[in-house]
């Protein structure tokens, strides 16, 4: 009887219109299923279950799913569960559970790969799943998604002009968002809770705005390693993170601005390891509080201006052979946050954060 139901579900779920495949009910994918040159529409309530090495490949058409459930019975090795390429994608309000790529390989790092595509991934829940990998794509919006208890969240590889906004990453054992060789992306207003590494700009990832993100707990907040130039890291909140910023790498070059960030109750605020000789780092208008070391310099030219330091044990630590950071116009006073103990880092009306920033601007979380 059960088999018959599954068969019926499978039969009735393939409601194929010219150029369109529609799935509803339950769909078992236990082998490679390819839908090429036509659109795939997965209807609300549809359950897509991956078994064995099952993989869904959609190419040269559009792929849209709204309110569907995707689950996998088992992890896979060196393969994705969903591959989409050359088209428009829309994944909304879906649940992805246990889609794990156990041993990632080069260019196979995640459970869903979106390549040469545009579109939207929004309102989805990713539970215990490996990353969404955006490869060689431009202009995908990934917003309002929730990533929980997975290894990693979103990977951008050789991609640009994506908007990664308002996503939430909780308990990611590797990273939340990683950019590899990608440029001109926007990472805004995302939340990271207890992720080993929240944001990783890697391998010439440059001209990226990392703004308004909130990072709670974890080993590292935002790491820039061998990244490119032109990155602006602003208005991010770090609370109880071991190292808020870890920026360096031998090929780390160009200029990076860190502005209006709030770093509270962290071990290190900024670690600037050895960098290319021409690399410059500007740290301005940040509020750095309850931190052991504010700026640890191993190389490069570091300028810090109009920052507020409060309950910071060492404002700077300069390792042998490095140039001391140029620190000016610092404010050393209680920032008078509204309620820092309860996570409210807005300034009270008499706070020194107000009007003491660059050009009379404000210090701290102002975008």
């Amino acid at each position, binding site marked *: 009887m059960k088999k018959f139901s599954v068969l019926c579900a499978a039969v009735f779920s393939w409601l194929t219109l010219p150029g369109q495949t529609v799935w509803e009910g339950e769909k078992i994918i236990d082998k490679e299923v390819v839908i090429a040159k036509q659109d795939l529409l997965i209807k*609300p309530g549809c359950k897509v279950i991956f078994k064995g090495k099952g993989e869904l490949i959609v190419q040269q058409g559009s792929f849209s799913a709204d309110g569907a459930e995707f689950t996998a019975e088992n992890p896979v090795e060196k393969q994705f569960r969903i591959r989409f390429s050359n088209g428009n994608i829309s994944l909304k309000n879906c649940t992805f559970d246990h889609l794990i790529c156990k041993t990632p390989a080069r260019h196979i790092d995640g459970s869903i790969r979106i390549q040469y595509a545009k579109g939207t991934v929004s309102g989805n829940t990713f539970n215990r799943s490996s990353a969404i990998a955006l490869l060689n794509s431009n202009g995908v919006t990934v917003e309002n998604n929730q990533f*929980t208890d997975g290894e990693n969240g979103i990977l951008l590889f050789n991609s640009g002009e994506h908007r990664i906004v*308002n996503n939430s990453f909780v308990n990611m054992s590797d990273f939340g968002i990683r950019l590899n060789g990608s440029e001109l992306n926007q990472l805004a207003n995302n939340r990271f809770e207890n992720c080993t590494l929240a944001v990783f700009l890697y391998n010439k990832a440059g001209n990226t705005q990392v703004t308004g993100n*909130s990072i709670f707990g974890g080993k590292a907040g935002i790491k820039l390693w061998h990244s490119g130039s032109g990155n602006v890291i602003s208005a991010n909140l770090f609370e109880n993170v071991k190292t808020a910023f870890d920026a360096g790498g031998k090929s780390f070059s160009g200029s990076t601005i860190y502005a209006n960030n709030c770093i509270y109750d962290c071990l290190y605020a900024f670690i600037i390891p050895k960098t290319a000789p021409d690399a410059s780092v500007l740290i301005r208008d940040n509020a750095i509080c309850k931190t052991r070391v504010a700026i640890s310099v191993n190389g490069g030219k570091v300028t810090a201006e109009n920052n507020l330091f409060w309950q910071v044990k060492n404002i700077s630590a300069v390792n042998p052979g490095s140039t001391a950071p140029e620190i000016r116009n610092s404010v050393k006073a209680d920032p008078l946050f509204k309620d820092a103990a309860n996570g*409210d880092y*807005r300034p009270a009306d008499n706070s020194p954060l107000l009007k003491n920033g660059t050009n009379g601007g404000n210090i701290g979380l102002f975008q």
Partner: protein
Amino acid sequence: MQKFVLILFFLVTLPIAARPVLQPEVKEYIPGNGTFSITGLPVFYQDQKQCEIGAGEIPGNRKRIKGFNNTAEKGIYIAVASSPEGEMLIRDFALDVPQKKQGYTIKAVDGKIAAVGFDNIGTLYGAVTLRQMAADGQIECTVVRDYPDILWRGAMSYGRGIAKWNYGERGLAGSKAAIDALFRHKINIISDFHRTSQTLSDAELEVISEICRYAEERGIWICIWPNTSLYNQTTKPAGTTLKNWHCVADGRPSRRVESYYCWSDDRATEENAVRQVEFLKKFGVSKLLLVIHPVDGGSEKDPEFWSRRCQKCREKFKDDERWKAGVRQFNILNNTLRKHFPEAVIGSCIYPYHADMLAVPRNRRDRRFNTNVTEYWKNISSGIKDENFFFNIWMPGHSIMKEYREIIGSKRKINYTDHYCLSAGIFATYHRYAGSLYEENSENVFLSVAQDTFGQWESIFLAGEHTWNRNAPGSGIYPGGAFYDGLKDHTGPAVIMEKTLPRICHTFWGKELAPYMTAVMASGIMPRYIENPAAVITYWNKVRRDPMYDPNVKKDTLVNNSLPPVEDSPELMRRQVIAAESVCKQLASAGKYFDSVNPYQRRYLVNFARLAPLWLAAARAQYNIRCAGELIAAGNNVQALKLLEKAQKELDADYTAAEKNLDALRAEKSMARRISWSLDRNTMQKQLDEARASAQVLLQPRRIGRFIKVGITQGDSAVGIKKFLDRFANVRATLIDNISLAELDKYDCVIVTAGNYKKAEFFQNIPAYVRKGGGGVLLEGMLCGHERFDSKTPFPEIVKTSPARVDNFQRKLKKSDGTLVKSMYVDYFELIPGKDGETTVTSTDGKPVVVRGRAGLGKAVFCGMVNLEGVNNTFVTAQTELSGINAQIVQDAIEYFTNIKLRRNKR
């Protein structure tokens, strides 16, 4: 020339000086020539109880001689017309005694005075009028003829009026002094014996019966409200509960009253009647005014909740035969009561008891209306053969009475009450309507049950004035519509404030205190408004919109005969500051005359003296806070802070003065264990601090921290909402007790539960928090544009108003994806979305119930439901954890506000 001036002065002042102050004003006062002193004149009175009491009313030390057989001696003679002494007086004094119940005549001539009543009580009233006429020891030669237009007049509360004068006192001298004050103003009903449904203890009844006997001797009737319920909370069979009772049950938890009804059990009805008789016997009086109360509720749609009657009742009485059941029950109760209390005046507030329902145009009356209202009244009236059985109604507009009479017949007695007005002030003039349902040769009753008369003596004396004489100056014919107008009835009409009120104060307070107390009563002070402006304005607007709004019973509007709503404003509170200043000044000046009243009435006076400075302190502080609120709303925080600095100084000074005043009056006896005023220094200081904190708030968009901080205002549903939110790992829910800007600003979003908020705060702080501070608010139930808030919302672009409350006993609502989900409560408000409102939940027929939208930097969600459980699919609420669509709405709202998904706690 000097002589001429003196004569002129004498001529001008003579009539004014000679005319005594009488209250209620008499019908005929025919002055003769000259005055004479009553000093030393003996009183001769007929050997009869009321004559004896009347003799005692004549002031001064004098001989009081029982019985007389001639009128040769100078003196004061008192007798009933029908007695030999009365006949002698009529002959010797050539008296024309009004042939009216309670009527009397007085003649004063050549050192002799005769007071003769048509009946016993009339004679007593003659004596008390004589007391007022001779208050200064002089009496004008005159003839007075007087009688009441309405035989039963007014009602003073026993619990809140009479017993207060006796508080903490051994003996009953205080209560008796209060009854003296009543009959001296010819008020003849006492009501409001708390817990009269067979629940009074024998000890309490013993005290009450003595008071009632004392009152009865003074012409006062005891008004009791027996019930058609077979049982109440004390007489019910063991194990009976409101839930398991087989027929209609009514519970009023706030009053701890349970009533169990059934129409098909004649035996139990008879047993109930016998129990009522046994209980009433304990009052020890025969002058009973018994108003049998049926099931209270259901309006004309389902009167007495007839649709919920039991199977046996259904078998016995069809759907349109409620009248048969009513006739049967009323007859049983009436016959049993009548048998034991032949003198009692008995009737019932036949449900529905709003005669003004006839204001519904005939072409809008459907079959149901006729069955449940007009035909019901008609059939009940024709079914109850005892013509003395009265119908008790809320006073209708005068024009309605003609049709009402046609329905119930011309002979049926009517007992009409005022509209259960919750007066905001201390003296109200809507009693000027009290005589407006006068019917020639009828024996109608006017029963004031107004809340303001609970201990508000001057108001009830005004009711006496206009029922004694329906043409008294200032009398009004109630035209229908709002019975009580809080904006006008505490300061006018002028004729009452300037003519009648001074007379009332003169006769009640005495000539020394009268000018001060007149000023106090006419000041327009409204303590209830000062104490709770939102509740008062809400109530005002309810009765302005729906004249039949009954604060005691939930019902639907039938008649739309409305006045424009009152907008609360700082100006209204400013007027209270002025009024309170005046009251304080008058009472301070009157202090030297406090000894002029008896020690029991003095408590009533001292109560004003204690409270007045507190009224002033609270009114001034509130006025300042409101002004500061307006400045904050306009962005003038610096000015607001300056104003609040001044407010702090005034608060300190006012409360210090009030506390000193209380200390000074500490030795004075009270009317209750505690002073009845909730806005003490700490309460107002807290409000001032909140305003100051709000003025200091720098509103900026927020960044959500590790946890989403959700504030929940402490309404009925708060506990259930918090319980639900506590299940999420990334939420910290806190119950908050105010909506000051400073408090709101602490939270990422706030769930504002249906409750009683200050309108200014609601319309200033909530929008500021959302629009400028980027916060999110979920507004629940009545906050979505209910009449309580003048049918407006803080975000009209999202929701304009919520005009209709809709029953939803199927308890299903539809989500935007079309799925039906169970709701917790049995009704909701239908919302009217604004241009930016997005509907997310609807009724099953597609009417908006939840609407959301952006406002400035923040967001708002309107949820037209309360988050409470409707117990057993009824309006009875229970505070349970959110479930069904209510839980989804709250979760969705928080996720919408914060863009953060809520995560359940891991088990």
